C-alpha cells in the first residue's frame, strides 16, 4: 500500500511529466503556425511527405516558413540551406546560455537536447532555470518533446485540411504565405532599428530580385539585419 502511494507520488511529480505540462500553454501559440505550415506546404510543391518530413527532421518553425517562401519563389536548394543557416543562427544564443548547465551530460544527451532546442523550448527552460537554478534533463526532455509532438500533430492536421481544398493556387493560396509573414513580422517590429531593417530588406530584395537561385534573399537578410543593428548602435550613441 505504502509502495503504491509513493509510486503514485513520484509519477505525479516526475520532472518529465512536469516538463510536458509546463510546455502545454505554448501549444496555443504553436498550433496555428503548424496548421498554416501544413496547409502551405502543398502550395509550393513540397508534397505531403516533404512537408511532414521537414517538421520531423528540421523542427524549426521560422526556417521552415522561410524555406516554403523560397521554394515558392523558385529558389535553388543551396540558397534555401544557406537561408536556413542564417535564420537559425539565433540558436547559438540559446546554446550559449544553456551550455554551462549541460557540460556534465554525455554526448548523446547533448545531441538530443540540441535537437529539441527551439525558441519555445528555450523560453520554457530559461524560465525554469531562473527559478530553480538548474536544468533537469528529464524536465527539458518533457518540454522539448511536448513542443515537438504539437508541431508534428499540427503539421499533419494542416496537411489534412489542405488536402480538402480542390486547387489551392486558383484560390490565391500562394499569397497565404506572404500574408503569414506579415503576421510574423508584426510581432517583430518594435523600435526604429527594426523598421530600418524592414525598409532595407524591402529595397534590397527588389534590387537583387534578378540574382540566380534567389541568392538575393540571403544577401538581403544579412545586409538588412546589419542595417537594423547599425541603427541601434547609432541611436545608443545619440
Amino acid at each position, binding site marked *: 500500500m505504502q509502495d503504491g502511494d509513493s509510486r503514485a507520488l513520484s509519477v505525479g511529480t516526475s520532472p518529465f511529466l512536469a516538463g510536458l505540462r509546463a510546455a502545454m500553454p505554448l501549444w496555443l501559440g504553436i498550433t*496555428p503556425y503548424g496548421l*498554416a505550415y501544413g496547409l502551405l506546404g502543398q502550395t509550393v510543391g513540397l*508534397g505531403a*511527405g516533404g512537408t511532414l518530413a521537414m517538421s520531423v*527532421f*528540421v*523542427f*524549426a518553425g*521560422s526556417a521552415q*516558413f522561410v524555406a516554403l*517562401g*523560397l521554394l*515558392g*519563389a523558385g529558389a535553388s*536548394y543551396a540558397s*534555401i*540551406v544557406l537561408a536556413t*543557416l542564417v*535564420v*537559425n*543562427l*539565433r*540558436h547559438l*544564443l540559446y*546554446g*550559449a546560455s544553456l*551550455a554551462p548547465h549541460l557540460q556534465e551530460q554525455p554526448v548523446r544527451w*547533448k545531441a538530443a537536447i*540540441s535537437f529539441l*532546442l527551439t525558441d519555445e523550448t528555450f523560453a520554457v527552460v530559461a524560465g525554469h532555470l531562473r527559478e530553480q537554478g538548474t536544468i533537469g534533463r528529464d524536465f527539458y526532455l518533457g518540454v522539448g518533446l511536448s513542443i515537438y509532438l504539437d508541431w508534428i500533430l499540427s503539421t499533419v492536421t494542416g496537411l489534412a485540411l489542405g488536402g480538402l481544398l480542390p486547387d489551392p493556387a486558383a*484560390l*490565391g*493560396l*500562394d499569397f*497565404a*504565405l*506572404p*500574408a503569414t*509573414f*506579415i503576421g510574423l*513580422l*508584426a510581432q*517583430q*517590429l518594435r523600435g526604429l532599428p*527594426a523598421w530600418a*531593417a*524592414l525598409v*532595407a*530588406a524591402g529595397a*534590397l530584395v*527588389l534590387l537583387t530580385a534578378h540574382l540566380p537561385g534567389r541568392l538575393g*534573399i540571403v544577401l538581403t*537578410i*544579412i545586409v*538588412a*539585419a*546589419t542595417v*537594423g*543593428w547599425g541603427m*541601434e548602435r547609432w541611436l545608443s550613441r545619440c
Partner: protein
Amino acid sequence: MAIALLILGMAAVTFLTRYLLVGLLGERSLPESLKRWLTYVPTAAFAAIVVQGTLAPQGTVRLDLRNPYLWGAVAAALVAWRRKNLLLTIAAGLLGLWGARILGGV
C-alpha cells in the same frame, strides 16, 4: 529524392546551430554585438519574403497598383497592425487579394 537532400541539408545546418555551443564549444559566451545583430535576423528575413512575394511574385518587380498581391498585403498589414492574430491576418490577406481580383479584373 532532391527534396530529401534539401531536408537533409536544412536538418544538418539547423542541428549545427543548436549543437555548436552545447556540444562542441561549451562555455563560451558570444560577443555582445553578435547577439544584438542576431535579434534583427528574423525581421530582415520575414520582410524580405513579404516584399518578394508581394512586389516580385514571379521574379519580376511589379510596383503598379494593378498588382492584386499589393492589395492583399495592405489588407493583411492593417489587420496585423490592429490585432496580433496570425490566422485573421492570413484571412484578411486573402480577402484583399480576392477583392482586388474581382474589382480590378486582374
